[in-house]
């Protein structure tokens, strides 16, 4: 899944999540193909970015491989942080950075 800007987006991509207006009204359902008229309509609703499906990385490694690589990389990624993550947002940053590092590690091994 990728979070990308609507500015100059290519037509034909699939939404990965429901898209809602600022008031919470669902505008587009998950799994909808983004056509040009739909993209323009979203822009008129002041939607600037959307989640789209991105299959490029999904099947590259198994979950088991990734988890093993995460354990290998955990200490190195933790070194990048001054102290342990103190709240859910910092925890998310840590976990996502770890996952990215694990994938890079697996790619380098290939």
């Amino acid at each position, binding site marked *: 899944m990728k979070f990308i800007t609507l500015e100059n987006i290519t037509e034909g991509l699939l939404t990965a999540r429901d898209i809602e207006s600022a008031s919470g009204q669902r505008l587009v359902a998950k799994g909808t193909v983004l056509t040009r008229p739909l993209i323009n309509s979203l822009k008129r609703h002041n939607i600037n970015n959307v989640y789209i499906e991105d299959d490029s990385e999904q099947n590259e490694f198994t979950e088991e491989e990734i988890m093993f690589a995460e354990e290998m990389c955990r200490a190195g990624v933790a070194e*990048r942080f001054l102290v342990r993550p103190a709240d859910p947002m910092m925890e998310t940053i840590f976990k996502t950075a770890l996952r990215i590092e694990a994938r890079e590690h697996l790619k380098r091994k290939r």
Partner: protein
Amino acid sequence: MSTLNAKDNIAKLFSRVDDLKTLPAVVLQINNLLRKEAVSIEEVSNTIEKDAALTARVLKLSNSSYYGLSYKVNSPASAIAILGFDTIRNLAVTISLTKSFNKPGKSAFNVKEVWLHGLGCAVAAKALACKSRDLGLQEKAFIGGIIHDIGKLLIFENMPAEMDRIMEMSSFDRTVDYGEIEKDVLGFTHADVGAYVAEKWLFPPELTGTIKYHHRPELNKEDREIACAVHAGNEIAKALCLGKSTFEKARNMNPRIWKELDLTEDDLSGIIPQIKMDFDVILNSLNLA
């Protein structure tokens, strides 16, 4: 030391330098043009086209997957028409400064890695500003990221002995605030230098405060959204190891920053991998990979 003394000391720093060589004339010209009430695409594109190497790089970056255009642009004028003045100005700045700072590191202070960290912060700050209702904010956040640590690079280039001392003191205890060490040694911080330079180089005025307070965005009363984007971009660039910001490590951030940027954990899970991918694309486009 008072603010007045800090400004005096920074002015003295720059009076010792023959030329502020890092920002080429063409970028100053573009910044000058963009300050006018009405500027034409032709005026800006003519300025870029005076520099063939810059033109080639601007087009290469404009056509990279970072901008995701569904058709190629083949002139600065069409790049400006599609991507906007601010984006093209930011590309010109990025390319020009990369030329200045893409050097191998010999001392503990690695110029290239610090510059790459600035690039990483720029990409991250722009992505984190994605929910702003101010359409121009993302590009301002990008340029804020590019120049937020430029003070470190200028201090290193012009006061290397002092920079060595700062690096040494900072390596003893990494919990001590880097800015406090700078104030001890220099009487000013890299953030002060960056803010001074942003003004001198004619960048949008809201960037001055953003850079001055990029470690303490809560002190920036006027442009809080962009200050939070650059602050968060700085920490995420460290978490992802996009370049290296001297010895500084990623710090926990005030949760209010995420409220200001209107970002949730879910948003971050989607944005952070995108930041890494975008950074890699730009590195390849600038031949820095």
